[in-house]
């Protein structure tokens, strides 16, 4: 601000930008906008458009009105379970994995013994792709050949991944295992940047350790909280690979992303129908992200 004002004062003139400035600005702003339109808004709108048609990917595109949505909501058995599982995923990661990650971060930040070791061990699953996590889950949890049933023994082994009432919890556990490490690293980075003077001051004012944490440290971590919140929402709504690795996302592991894939990517070619599912997923994601961001930004202003 100061410099521009100074420049204005020194060099009076109607034009604030030279032609070159404009060209540079145009390129620098225009390119990202074009890319954004072409790669994000284009496909999004195309998908919304396709969701009102039937198209098998080869022949003609025929309009279908709201049929896809009607069929989706009333006659597609995997749809509502998929919605439930996505919400369950969100609740599980948001209410369990994220707070647990924070707890671990605080513990490690306080310098427990071997903290370096814990830090890398807990972070390790984040480096693994969820597909690998799914594979590991199978090695441990498979009914006939898994490690867990081999340890437990018993005549009628539990079908951890095949029982549709049970497998979602097992998969959530595996997803949690990974998400906790992720959240922990984020908070750890945040905690390192908290000024120790703040904590000292709080302690001098007679705040208990608990009060110091919840009233002083956590509020200063606000930017990290926003990031963790957004990541948690994104992770739970786009969850895909782990269930796909376990059983292609069927039989109790339905997720919206899997249904989209099943209908569009596979040999199936129900592109209109699959797009309708994608649009539902888009709306759900937008709902969460927009609400969350608006709230966070508003909170920021009130501060």
């Amino acid at each position, binding site marked *: 601000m100061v410099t521009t004002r100074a420049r204005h004062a020194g060099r009076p003139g109607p034009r604030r930008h030279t032609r070159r400035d404009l060209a540079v600005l145009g390129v620098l702003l225009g390119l990202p906008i074009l890319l954004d339109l072409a790669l994000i808004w284009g496909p999004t709108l195309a998908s919304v458009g396709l969701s009102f048609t039937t198209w098998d990917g*080869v022949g003609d595109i025929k309009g279908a009105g709201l049929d896809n949505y009607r069929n989706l909501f009333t006659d597609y*058995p995997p749809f509502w379970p998929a919605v439930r599982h996505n919400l369950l995923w969100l609740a599980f990661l948001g209410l369990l994995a994220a707070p647990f990650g924070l707890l671990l971060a605080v513990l490690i930040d306080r310098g427990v013994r071997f903290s370096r070791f814990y830090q890398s061990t807990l972070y390790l699953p984040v480096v693994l792709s969820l597909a690998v996590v799914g594979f590991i889950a199978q090695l441990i949890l498979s009914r006939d050949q898994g490690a867990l049933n081999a340890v437990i023994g018993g005549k009628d082994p539990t079908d951890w991944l095949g029982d549709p009432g049970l497998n979602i919890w097992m998969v959530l556990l595996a997803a949690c295992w990974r998400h906790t490490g992720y959240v922990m690293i984020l908070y750890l980075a945040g905690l390192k940047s908290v000024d120790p003077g703040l904590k000292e001051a709080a302690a001098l004012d007679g705040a208990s350790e608990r009060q110091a944490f919840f009233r002083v440290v956590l509020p200063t971590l606000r930017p990290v909280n926003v990031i963790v919140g957004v990541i948690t929402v994104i992770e739970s709504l786009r969850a895909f690979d782990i269930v*796909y690795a376990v059983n292609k996302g*069927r039989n109790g592991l339905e997720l919206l992303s899997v249904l989209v894939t*099943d209908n*569009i*990517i596979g040999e199936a070619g129900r592109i209109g129908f699959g797009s309708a599912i994608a*649009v539902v997923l888009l709306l759900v994601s937008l709902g969460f992200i927009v609400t969350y961001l608006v709230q966070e930004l508003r909170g920021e202003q009130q501060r």
Partner: protein
Amino acid sequence: MAQSPFSGSDAYGEVAGRRMSRRTLLRGAALGAGAVALPALLTACDSGPSGITMGSNASDAVPKKAFAAAFTAYEKKSKKTVKVNTVNHENFQENINRYLQGTPDDVFMWFAGNRMQYFARKGLLTDISDLWRDFGGFTEALKKQSTGRDGKQYLVPYYYYPWAVFHRKSVFRERGYEIPRTFDEYRALAKKMQKDGLVPFAFGDKDGWPAMGTFDYLNMRANGYDFHIALMSGRKSWNSPQVKQVFDLWRGLMPYHQKGANGRTWQEAAQTLAQKKAGMTVLGLPHPGQQFSAADRPDLDFFPFPEIDPVHGQDAVEAPIDGFLMSRKAKDEDGARDLLKFLATPEAENTYLKYDPNNIAVNSGADTATYTALQKKAVHLVAGARQISQFMDRDTRPDFASTVMIQAIQQFLNNPDDIDGLVNDIERQKKQIFAAG
């Protein structure tokens, strides 16, 4: 939006897309930069060193080697080159639509039946009726399975593998079990096995398709082949009494099936048969053998699925046929025709089966002297069949099989008691899908 935000897009990015996108990317880069040297390089990579391109889904080690042997034999004979692009089996299937509309290879591997007819109807294949006039050694049934709805031939059949009830000879001998011919005998045998501490039917349906074999057989034995085809093509309804009866018969067998089928792969199921923990299993010819050690393999045997309604007896055999198709956009059409002509010969099939003895040649001129006892029996089984079905996911629309039937059968396995609700669900979805055209 449809695909971009999901890591699922990785799954399909794997395939032909990898090769294609690199090419289009290069082409784009060349255009943009106006490079001089690149176009030459690109044309070289576009048409290849003047050879026939072959899209292969044979990604498993055994068939991959066997196909390579057959193509080498052709190269030696014709002095042409065959460039094989092998893609993971599942990915190949998932991407077939895009693959055929993009830049497909001249010839590619695919399946007979409705699954081939679908692409023929969409105009993505080249008619090879002229080649078929000179083909020898194919039965009328094979020709029918290679023919599109328009009456023209599109497929060169290569091999097939019948489905049956597999078991171990030694187990049957030691326990004095008899081969069941009727459904009642079948059920009685299962009961007896259970009493003897065996799992009567080894069973795994995690992949979604293996259980379709059992459904198809129950359906064809109870209602006949014609009903099967009518049901698969959407002309009969799924909530008809006939279909309910099929599920009901199956429910009666459920107590004898291995528990937790939805969490078990067919490989694991076949292993329980190999370990003599299970007595029988319904699978295709190549499946159980792969899970047996070489020493145990001669002990593997099968019998045809037992009779339910005497009117239909054991007439129909489920024997999926694999073969070759020529894409619409074949670049080297003459070469492709020449290669297909070779692949239809007994010689080509002999070369293949030498390396992959888990299938059977379709050409009656093929050499059966080297066949194992099991292969010979399979030939006999198919030769005696009145009708040959392909398999549920090949006889019906792919979208119906993969988005409705896999889920429906898995749901049935979880809860065999709500048959009415299940078949009504299927019928509603069937109507939508078949109405979509």
